[in-house]
């Protein structure tokens, strides 16, 4: 009798505990299904850091040492402790000299034997075993090949945007991104808006339904004309084009890639996908060198009636400005810091930090150009993996789709651009005469994709 009661008790206990277990699990399920808020990690958002964490020393090599390259290298060493630039590679000796002087002025000299010049300089730099991180900041034409070489040499990467100029390069980027992922190599891509706290907080609001379903968008980068170089005596074709890279489509991809890709990337980010097709137009009005357009206007069709109007222009004395705007069923946002209700009243505003005088600043404290390097170092040192290469390749390919739509006058689908064999640039990279024809594209005339 005593035994039986014991048994029964035990059974009861087991039963109760199992029920309790189910109860806890069930409650968890209910709780999680009730809460609509989604956290940073599930939204794929980067951490906002005050500095890169301590850890083993990371030595970086810089490939492409012009203004942005040198800037990116300085951003890297400013991101946290024990970060060094130890090698440089470029096609021009004078660029190397300038960059070395810059680092000497910081008391951070770069040894001459670690500086490489020429079209294969990047290979020599990436073969250095002491290098952990490669910063790729050449004109975008070279990026896919450089990235592949870096991954083959097992280096973590910082890649400037845009990451390619044509669909062949985009596919190489995506495949290499997957190779990097398989090897656990971290990659950050210079899309700094994705690392900006105000953008991130606005994105969280939108992702949690602050403006309802997204219905349309616009993205714009309208600015004054940008730099160009006139040809100097003694420059051969190749030297001239690379020194004036910002004006040749095969090197730069046109400004719809070079600068406007930032806005396009933000729209892709907020929409959660890339567009299905594009129709657009553009033209050349005042450019003095190269083969590119001065302005583009593209309709990116995201499907289900959702479109984004993309504009970019490099003309002086016009209604200029840059940014993004997204409309939803319950409001609209500028993506960076403010959300409005449909009647125009402000629904939410990002709170910027205060400066030492107690006045609210109009930007975040840490430059996003440094923040993205903090993220890279954080990922390498803590093992919280990051790889932005594929998504930036997709945003770059989106811009290529828009560019192709404008150049050709045709409707360009994602499928067509993804599969296109468009491969810009000369077959062989070497200094000397280049046998290429530079005609500004005229819409409605072949070849198309």
């Amino acid at each position: 009798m005593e035994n039986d009661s014991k048994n029964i008790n035990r059974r009861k206990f087991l039963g109760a505990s199992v029920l309790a277990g189910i109860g806890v699990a069930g409650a968890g399920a209910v709780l999680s299904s009730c809460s609509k808020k989604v956290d940073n990690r599930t939204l794929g958002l980067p951490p906002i850091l005050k500095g890169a964490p301590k850890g083993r020393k990371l030595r970086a090599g810089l490939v492409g040492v012009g203004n942005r390259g040198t800037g990116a290298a300085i951003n890297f060493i400013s991101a946290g402790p024990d970060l060094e630039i130890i090698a440089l590679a470029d096609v021009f000796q004078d660029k190397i000299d300038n960059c070395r002087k810059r680092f000497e002025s910081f008391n951070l000299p770069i040894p001459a034997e670690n500086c490489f010049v020429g079209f294969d300089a990047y290979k020599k730099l990436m073969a250095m075993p002491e290098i952990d991180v490669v910063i790729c900041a050449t004109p975008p034409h070279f990026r896919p090949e450089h990235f592949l070489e870096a991954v083959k040499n097992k280096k973590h990467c910082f890649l400037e945007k845009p990451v390619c100029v044509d669909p062949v390069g985009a596919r190489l980027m995506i495949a290499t991104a997957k190779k990097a992922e398989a090897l656990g190599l971290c990659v950050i891509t210079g899309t700094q808006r994705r690392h900006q706290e105000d953008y991130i907080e606005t994105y969280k609001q939108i992702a949690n339904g602050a403006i309802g379903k997204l219905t349309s968008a616009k993205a714009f980068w309208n600015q004054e004309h940008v730099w160009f170089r006139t040809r100097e005596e003694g420059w051969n074709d190749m030297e001239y084009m690379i020194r004036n890279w910002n004006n040749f489509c095969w090197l730069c991809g046109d400004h719809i890639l070079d600068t406007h890709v930032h806005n396009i990337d933000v729209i892709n980010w907020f929409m959660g996908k890339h567009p299905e097709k594009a129709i657009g137009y553009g033209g050349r009005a005042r450019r003095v060198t190269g083969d590119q357009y001065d302005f583009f206007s593209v309709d990116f069709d995201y499907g289900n009636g959702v479109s984004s109007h993309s504009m970019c222009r490099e003309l002086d004395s016009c209604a200029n400005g840059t940014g993004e705007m997204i409309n939803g069923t319950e409001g609209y946002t500028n993506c960076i810091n403010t959300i409005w209700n449909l009647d125009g009243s402000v629904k939410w505003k990002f709170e910027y930090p205060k400066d030492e005088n107690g006045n609210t600043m109009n930007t975040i404290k840490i430059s996003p150009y440094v923040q993205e390097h903090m993220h890279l170092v954080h990922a390498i040192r803590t093992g919280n993996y990051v790889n932005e290469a594929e998504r930036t390749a997709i945003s770059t390919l989106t811009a290529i789709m828009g560019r192709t739509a404008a150049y050709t006058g045709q409707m360009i689908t994602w499928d067509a651009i993804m599969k296109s064999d468009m491969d810009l640039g000369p077959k062989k990279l070497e200094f000397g005469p280049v046998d290429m024809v530079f005609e500004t594209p005229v819409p409605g005339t072949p070849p198309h994709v």
Partner: protein
Amino acid sequence: MKIKNFVLRVINGSKARIWIMTFGALLCLIVVGIFNTVLTTTSSDSYCMSCHVHPWAEQSWKLGPHHNNRTGVSVHCVECHLPPKGEGYLFAKAKHGAIDVYGYLFKDSTKINWESKKLLENAKGFTYEKSCIKCHSNLFPVTLSVNGSNAHLAYINATEDPKPNCINCHLNAGHFDKNAKHEHDTNFGVDAALSQEKFTSSTKVSKFVNFREKIPGSTVAFDMVAIPEGTFNMGSPADEPFRKPDEGPVHKVKVSKFWMGKIEVSWNEYLAFFQATASQGRTEGQIIVNKNVDAVTGPTPPWGAPDQGWGKGTRPAITMSWRAANTYCMWLSKVTGKKYRLPTEAEWEYACRGNTTTPYFFDGDPKKFTSKGIFKKIFGPDTTNINSRIIYMVNSSSKTQDPGSVKENPFGLKNMAGNIAEFCSDFYSPDAYKTATGLVVDPKGPETGTEHVIRGGSFKSDAKDVRSAARDFTKTQAWLVTDPQMPKSIWWYSDCIDNGFRVVCEADSIK
């Protein structure tokens, strides 16, 4: 007595439960142990090979990269031919085991068509993609080439149905096949008959009779058969066995006279075209849209071996696209000064029937000829008449055959049904016949469409699909699934090995 007491004590005693539980646990252990041993033993290579006695399986596996590789790792039978454990492993093992036991007991291994097991669609039935992925979890190793990367990107992004399977491309990864090539064949079609004298002009034709056409600039000649004009019933009656709805309704069609190739366009003929027109790239090829161009630009070098290593010569040419077949006709017209083209669907069926109205152009019942159904699997289908006239599933050894081996139809044509399925010029529509009223003269099919009609069935077809009225159509997307190029080839299908064509020559080509 002692034992009996012990047992009673065990059953009735105060510790009864403990005894029974211990006993049960032990029994479980033993059963699980035996089960596991059986499972392991019956999953070993040697156990597999003990039934799969045909030498091809073991030898070709040993020669292939899953055994013969630089790492020394050997991949065993069940690691590919069963799904991973926990993902349907036991079920698949029971299923394949039952089939194997049945085959072992009731079938003669020498009579099984092992060649056909190598075909992609058959291999998919006993090669598990999940198992491929289980080991090959990294689809982007750093050493992967640009072409390989593009192919794997296409694979992971595929939206078409059916999605490509690993073995669409890697069919020979498990079992070595010396005929399988995985490269651009730049030597393809290099002329072996250079020493022979080339024809300088085509055959002059002044009367509507059979003639032998000579291709100028080549050593190749082929026979054209004069098909008289006539009226016939197109389609199949509702009571014809295995009839499909797109074969009806039966309607009267009048066809004007024309010549038709006695055999399907052979490799000899197609290679003459390839050599004369081959291009290096797609952009050159796209010029052909204009019919009045001075020169025709032809196919790019193919990927792999388009003849599948079966041989060329008078075997029918295969794997070219519908567009390439059309370009061939344009080119042939140009070099011969006659009007060659693909047959219309009506011309094709008229020529195939040769004035017969039965399911085949000879006597026979599709129900008796078919291999479908459990009884046919055990006792085998009837092959009287059909065996000597049609190359189909039962007699083809899963390959195209030389046309010398079959008898002619009443018009004197060979292989109208079977061997390879043939392109027609018509767009395909399942409702193509439904609009017919009264006597239709020289119909050309729907005005618009996406895919084209193919007729006659192939060496892969069951007897039911080589009936004179049976219709089929091209499947452009599925036939290009594994083409590693972006964009895909406009000249060669990467995933269709049983399609070709036959030419017709218009009667007003007489000069």
